[in-house]
């Protein structure tokens, strides 16, 4: 049996590691766009803030792959997948035949159309090295801006504030995560930003960058903003043209069922780029968390090795914005809910939204109310009918 895994992140590497345990004799090839062995992208903010040294972000050494009998092809892309003749083509022209193949390529960053020195993205270790170098080299006092209203924007803001950079937060919606958070939750976050000295510019789009080679600022319809460093966190988008051309169904990601099987035989998908059928919430969705990617890598390895296994996980995101804990559990997109219950308020310092579908909690957002997390996770996991519990769920004084 010959397995080819496309993507050397946590989903792909975990799958390779599990396959080796399940099939000691199999050929396993892992193709990675990264030149580095596996590292934790979740540790990059800790590295940037000086909490851990650079060497601590690595989860595998270069020698690990060989010791596991995994052929590791690094710094390489897949440009074509032929699902009829069962081979993939690499960017150097090589063709790799497979018996089973996993697509675990994650997502591509959404970028600005322009680039200047001072503009930063934060996805890879190389991005983090570049950002750290800029922060060290830029003269102080330094004005910085963060563009975007999601997880990466939070990381930039936390870092810039720690570094004493005078920070402006610019985002296109009225608040962070506009499809997820209600106005009350948004008020809570915007108030925290303002209280910590961050200038908040909601409903603002960057129209163009200012400066010749070095960033000097940017123009918006509200006027220009001067800054020497600009962190971009606009989310990910995957083109996946090579996957579509292989006849594999693609939506927002590579479409897969709960077994992480695509519509093409012997082709599987896992990780940030897999739009899989989530049995917990009852529809197909993308989930971009470490735990999701790791668990999918582990589960899909079983299926690829012949032990067909459904994937099930109550997904959760957790981050922190200037000391305020932000947690999403299950499906946090409000459009999937037919009813929303709210606990707490911005004035109380914490807001929890519970998203219900046919009286069952399918998702929640929890800001500044950490104690709500585990009981709500249990309600989602158990698909509990909450018809008789709604008054308690809406009462922030009731401990769940």
């Amino acid at each position, binding site marked *: 049996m010959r397995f080819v895994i496309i993507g050397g992140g946590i989903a792909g590497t975990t799958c390779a590691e599990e396959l080796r345990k399940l099939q000691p004799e199999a050929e396993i090839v892992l193709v990675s766009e990264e030149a580095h062995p596996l590292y*934790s992208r*979740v*540790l990059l903010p800790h590295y940037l803030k000086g909490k*851990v040294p650079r060497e601590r972000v690595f989860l595998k050494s270069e020698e690990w792959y060989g010791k596991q009998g995994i052929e590791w092809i690094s710094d390489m892309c897949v440009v074509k997948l032929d699902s009829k003749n069962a081979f993939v083509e690499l960017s150097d022209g090589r063709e790799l035949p497979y018996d089973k193949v996993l697509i675990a390529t994650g997502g591509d960053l959404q970028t600005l159309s322009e680039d200047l020195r001072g503009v930063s993205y934060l996805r890879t270790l190389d991005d983090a090295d570049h950002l750290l170098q800029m922060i060290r080299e830029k003269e102080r006092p330094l004005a910085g801006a963060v563009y975007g209203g999601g997880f990466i924007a939070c990381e930039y803001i936390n870092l810039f504030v720690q570094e004493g950079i005078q920070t402006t937060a610019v985002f296109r919606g009225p608040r962070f995560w506009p499809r997820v958070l209600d106005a009350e939750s948004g008020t809570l976050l915007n108030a925290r930003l303002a209280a910590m000295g961050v200038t908040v510019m909601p409903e603002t789009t960057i129209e163009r960058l200012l400066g010749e080679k070095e960033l000097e600022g940017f123009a918006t319809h509200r006027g220009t903003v001067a800054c020497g460093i600009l962190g971009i966190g606009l989310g990910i988008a995957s083109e996946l043209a090579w996957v579509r051309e292989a006849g594999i169904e693609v939506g927002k990601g590579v479409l897969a069922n709960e077994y992480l099987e695509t519509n093409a035989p012997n082709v599987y998908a896992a990780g940030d780029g897999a739009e899989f059928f989530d049995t917990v919430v009852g529809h197909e969705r993308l989930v971009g968390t470490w*735990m999701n990617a*790791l668990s999918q890598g582990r589960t899909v390895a079983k299926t690829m090795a012949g032990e067909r296994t459904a994937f099930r*996980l109550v997904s959760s995101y*957790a981050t922190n914005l200037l000391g305020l804990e932000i947690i999403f559990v299950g499906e946090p997109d409000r459009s999937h809910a037919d009813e929303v219950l709210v606990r707490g308020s911005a004035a109380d310092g914490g807001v929890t939204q519970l998203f219900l579908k046919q009286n069952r909690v399918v998702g929640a957002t929890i800001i500044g109310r950490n104690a709500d997390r585990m009981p709500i996770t249990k309600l989602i996991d158990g698909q509990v009918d909450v018809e008789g519990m709604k008054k308690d769920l809406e009462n922030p004084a009731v401990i769940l």
Partner: protein
Amino acid sequence: MATYRIKVDPDLCIGAASCVTIDPATFQLNDENKAYVLDHGTEPGERTYERDVEMTDAEKDNMILAAQSCPTLAIFVYDEAGTQLFPEL
């Protein structure tokens, strides 16, 4: 059976909850959204980030799996002699 010292560094923990998902008898989240350490689902003494726990090999393997799944490597595991088992040095 052997005893393992299990320690969570709350400064590194971001509340990703991967450890809780894999080994809820050993890890739970507190109100700070940080993982703390239990002994087979119980909390003898006070709630703590560090605890010595006696485990079977199977329990130890699952606990190590939970530690390995932590995206910030915030969980440290030592054997009775004080040798660090995870993260591997």
